[in-house]
């Protein structure tokens, strides 16, 4: 049971990280932090089409970061309050630090290899 839960948590974290990896989506979240907005309102500051914004909104919604309600023909979005836990933040911080560390280690190992191979 515990194992199943951890897999689900891992999958949900992966969706969260993927959703947060895109700068446009982070800007949408930042905008929603100041209150509910319609898709049109969200599209306004961006030089991209409304279908493109709608795609971003779908990714954020599937990651559980935002929720949409139906209001006539409009679908206002708001942040899902339970979306970002302290655990998510910690893991995101860890992931960023390790990604940079290991990228530097890749470069160091490549340099060592070159030195070994050069006469």
């Amino acid at each position, binding site marked *: 049971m*515990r*194992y199943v839960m*951890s897999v689900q*948590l*891992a999958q949900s*974290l992966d969706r969260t990280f993927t959703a*947060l990896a895109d*700068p446009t989506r*982070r800007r949408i*979240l*930042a905008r929603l*932090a100041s209150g509910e907005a319609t898709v049109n309102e969200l599209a306004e500051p961006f030089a991209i089409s409304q279908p493109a914004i709608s795609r971003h909104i779908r990714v954020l919604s599937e990651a559980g970061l935002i929720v949409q309600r139906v209001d006539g023909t409009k679908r206002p979005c708001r*942040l899902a*309050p*339970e*979306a*970002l836990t*302290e*655990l*998510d*933040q*910690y*893991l*995101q*911080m*860890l*992931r*960023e*630090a*390790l*990604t*940079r*560390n*290991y*990228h*530097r*280690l*890749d*470069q*160091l*190992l*490549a340099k*060592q*290899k070159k030195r070994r191979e050069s006469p």
Partner: protein
Amino acid sequence: MSKLALTTEGETHVVVKRRFEAPPEAVYRAHLDPKLLRQWCLGPEGWTMPVCINEGKAGGKIRYEWANGKGGGFFLTGEILELEPPHRIVHVERMHLPDPTPDNHVVTTFVADGTGTLMTMRMSLPDAATRKAMLSTGMEHGMEASYARLERLSGWKTAS
């Protein structure tokens, strides 16, 4: 560039997997040799490691100090428990923020994978109080704006 896999295991552990294009001997050494550690084990951009002690033997001490050049810094101390060159490092570490966090028991393994190495690092997940301390120290300075945004979102969440 190889992709980092980060997963949680139960409620108490984090498992990190990463492949490197170098033999296990080289990756293992990069995790113990201070000269090499200082070149890569730095976290966010802009940080350096002015003090890097790793005695590189079972029972040996570890002390890493990081600084961001703007007055921010923290350090980590630890002990090496077991070494099986070039395949396994078991050590314990704690951050000083400045109060020491609970011990993080870390097992790192290096397995040959073709011409490269698959590294697996299994470590303890800090408790909620420790996570809060880690998030609120200098550790996040220099992180990308994305992280600052996460903090703001979290502030919004608390306020709601």
